[in-house]
């Protein structure tokens, strides 16, 4: 049992000679040869979902489509096929763990085939914290089914009915007769494909020996020796490098282009298809020179300026729904009223690996390697653009240099395919950092208006309008108020899309700021106020855990120190963050002294990796909270580089503690998003606590200096 994860996905080893789109039940053994396998269809996945996911994912074209399967070969190799992709969440490890647990093997024995449209079943994409929520539990069941089949096969082989057989290290063992057989030997010559039995008994979390433990990143060594090839590192025989001509500003239309100078450079090919102009050359430098030698002129539209952004978002919003009389009256009659508006800037994902795509055409077949969160989305796009049958395309996503929601599209895969088709060679395109900033997409900017009130110490009305940034995380977790929650679509001047936790960060920022202000306005401790109003015991539990670890009641050592807190629940994760900050006396510089985050997302599959996700979320969130913002002027980004767009660095990381609550009685949810939402409001409330200054913008302090209230 020493099959190595990832081995079948490495470059140049195609276990199938041609792309097959997605393997069907009927064709299964044509491709897999022999062995046994269990499969899951999408309707199983949705039914098994512990959480009602209030999103489009539930509408699925064909619920009987296979979602994933696990196969055991006569060589004893255990292979999992899933369309999910690894972009740093370490799901290759966590999914291996749950399968290994049920099959009594080491996690390294699981071969995970991920994000390969020729091999893995259809998947919408890796986003929305859905892998651990939906795929992990059902893979556990598929593996448990396999375990049962293995036992049945052993019973048949040994002609016994004994039920005391057990599994260990890839063997089925009969302790009475002192016999054992390897999984490979048990499946030899067989062709067994079974749909998952959802009622199968899985191993209880308290019995877990592999799942629930801090198993290190699978293939970790390849990443610290430089051996792993991200798409940007891949090389195919005869491959050339490509670049694409970009407009000088958003919305600019190409008038004219002179490519004659570029064409004169030896080895350079210029490709022109309508307004699309690309170049290829044998190396990165030559292709950059070729691109720079193209003379082009453009018709620029009248762009919007950043200074007009927030007014524009409100002005272009869909008409407001009528706020019910009950909400209006509760507000009018209240003791304490707050009516405030928040402004949220666009921010960029800045994945350290910029978008990269590699394409190769052979006899009308197209193969594309791309770092994308939606391999099947790219597959469908390629099918449309190049008018190809589904099985003439194969998209691969090797483990990718991060995404954070920013790689749901794959323009670069399409661009590489286009250039490759013209030049008749494999083409690789790696976007420059500037292209990644300008031509990807951003976390939406937004305006959030909140009108809220307090009557007799209780929240009596809550009215929240989110313009443009989104409805995720808009739900109000506190009891008693007459509510009006509304998301208004607006026209966004910049291209926007998904981001870690989407708009939850903005909505929770507004919500937790106002709730904090209401508490303080009524003279109550913000922690006690929240505990009195919170409805969900899981949220209460993380608040209490963080408060205790932070020691909320402790005396401040100096009067320029502030404590702040916030809590929230997003996508099945429950989070509370408490911070201590200092406003330096002379300079008014903000110093973040301590951050405590408590998080709970059901039973923990890998404590070390969960802690890492929580830490990563909080620190990435700290960037958006304090200083990250996309700046633009005259239709162009003015900070499209890492010297001008600031992301958190080592020096920005404060003292941090993460407390993980393990609920062995509850199914796991994802953790790559929820823990990001509380750092901004916790900081904001701490700044208020220290200085009396209330901030209503994200980012709050691009200069790092707390404004003077006096």
């Amino acid at each position: 049992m020493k099959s190595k994860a990832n081995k079948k996905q490495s470059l140049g080893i195609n276990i199938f000679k041609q792309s097959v789109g997605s393997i069907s039940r009927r064709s299964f053994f044509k491709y897999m040869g022999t062995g046994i396998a269990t499969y899951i269809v999408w309707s199983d996945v949705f039914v098994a979902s512990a959480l009602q996911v209030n999103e489009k994912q539930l509408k699925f074209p064909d619920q009987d489509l296979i979602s994933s399967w696990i196969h055991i070969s006569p060589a004893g190799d255990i292979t999992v096929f899933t369309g999910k992709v690894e972009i740093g969440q370490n799901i290759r490890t966590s999914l291996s763990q749950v399968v290994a647990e049920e099959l009594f093997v080491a996690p390294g024995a699981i071969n995970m085939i991920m994000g390969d449209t020729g091999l893995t079943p259809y998947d919408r994409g890796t986003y929305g914290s859905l892998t651990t929520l939906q795929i992990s539990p059902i893979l556990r069941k598929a593996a448990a089914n396999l375990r049962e089949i293995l036992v049945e096969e052993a019973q048949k082989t040994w002609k016994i009915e004994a039920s005391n057989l057990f599994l260990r290290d890839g063997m089925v063992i009969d302790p009475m007769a002192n016999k054992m057989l390897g999984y490979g030997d048990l499946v030899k010559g067989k062709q067994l494909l079974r749909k998952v039995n959802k009622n199968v008994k899985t191993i209880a979390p308290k019995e877990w020996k592999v799942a629930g433990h801090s198993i290190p990143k699978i293939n970790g060594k390849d990443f610290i020796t430089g051996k792993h090839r991200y798409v940007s590192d891949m090389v195919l025989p005869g491959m050339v490098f490509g670049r694409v001509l970009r407009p000088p500003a958003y919305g600019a239309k190409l008038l004219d282009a002179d490519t004659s100078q570029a064409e004169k450079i030896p080895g350079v090919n210029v490709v022109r298809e309508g307004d699309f102009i690309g170049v290829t050359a044998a190396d990165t430098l030559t292709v950059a020179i070729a691109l720079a030698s193209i003379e082009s002129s453009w018709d620029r539209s009248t762009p919007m300026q950043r200074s007009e952004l927030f007014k524009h978002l409100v002005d272009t919003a869909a008409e407001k729904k009528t706020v019910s009389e009950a909400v209006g009256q509760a507000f009018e009659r209240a003791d304490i009223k707050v009516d405030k508006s928040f402004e949220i800037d666009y921010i960029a994902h800045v994945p350290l690996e910029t978008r990269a795509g590699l394409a190769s055409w052979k006899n009308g077949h197209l193969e594309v390697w791309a770092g994308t969160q939606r391999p099947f989305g790219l597959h469908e796009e390629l099918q449309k653009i190049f008018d190809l049958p589904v099985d003439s395309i194969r998209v691969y996503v090797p483990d990718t240099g991060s995404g954070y929601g920013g790689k749901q599209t794959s323009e670069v895969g399409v661009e590489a395919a286009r250039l490759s088709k013209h030049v008749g060679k494999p083409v690789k395109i790696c976007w420059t950092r500037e292209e990644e900033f300008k031509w990807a997409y951003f976390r939406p900017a937004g305006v959030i208006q909140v009108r809220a009130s307090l009557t007799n110490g209780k929240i009596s009305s809550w009215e929240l309008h989110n313009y443009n940034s989104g409805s995720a995380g808009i739900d109000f977790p506190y009891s008693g108020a007459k509510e009006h929650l509304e998301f208004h679509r607006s026209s966004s001047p910049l291209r926007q899309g998904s981001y870690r936790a989407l708009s939850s960060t903005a909505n929770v920022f507004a919500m937790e700021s106002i709730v904090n202000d209401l508490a303080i306005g009524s003279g109550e401790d913000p922690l006690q106020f929240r505990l009195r109003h919170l409805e969900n015991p899981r949220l209460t539990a993380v608040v209490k855990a963080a408060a205790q670890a932070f020691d909320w009641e402790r005396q401040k050592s100096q009067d320029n120190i502030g404590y702040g807190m916030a809590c929230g629940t997003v996508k099945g994760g429950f989070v509370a963050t408490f911070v201590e900050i200092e406003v330096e006396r002379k300079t008014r510089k903000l110093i973040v002294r301590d951050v405590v985050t408590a998080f709970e997302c059901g039973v923990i599959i890998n404590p070390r990796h969960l802690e890492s996700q929580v830490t990563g979320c909080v620190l990435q969130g700290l960037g958006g909270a304090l200083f990250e913002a996309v700046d633009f002027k005259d239709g162009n980004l003015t900070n499209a580089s890492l010297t001008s767009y600031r992301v958190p660095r080592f020096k920005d990381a404060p003292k941090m503690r993460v407390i993980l609550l393990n609920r062995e009685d509850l199914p796991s949810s994802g953790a790559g998003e929820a823990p990001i939402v509380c750092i901004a409001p916790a900081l904001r409330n701490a700044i208020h606590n220290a200085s009396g200054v209330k901030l209503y913008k994200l980012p709050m302090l691009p200069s790092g200096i707390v404004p003077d209230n006096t």
Partner: protein
Amino acid sequence: MKVSVNNKEYSVEVTNNPSLLEVLRDQFDLTGTKYGCGEGACGACKVLVNGIPTPACITPVTSVSGKKVVTIEGLAENGELHPVQKVLLEEDVFQCSYCASGMIITAAALLKQQPTANVQELIDGLNGNICRCCTYPAIINALKKLSQKEGEK
């Protein structure tokens, strides 16, 4: 022109004055060194030039003539991982790991210079390296183990 990388002599095509990063990746297929920003601001492309961590993306290859370049591929000795690689692997710090090569190169040079570096010195020395997954605390904790062990000697 000839360049020494990981104790091996390579012939380089220097037309158009390529950067060391372009040469390592395109000409030598040493892709462990990554492109991150192209302006020496993120640390992903750092290599050792005569032992000094240097952003390869803004270093003309002609400037390393006669010098010794070490990339992530050449850090292990006699099949033994470098102690920095070992401790980061053991402590399981990375998420997407794209920053790992530059981070390891920088930390290896830092700890060679200051074997008993304290936390603040580690932070100062690594501040030029971005980990966008923000695994910073785990990286510092892992490296601290190395420098503390060195301090106890």
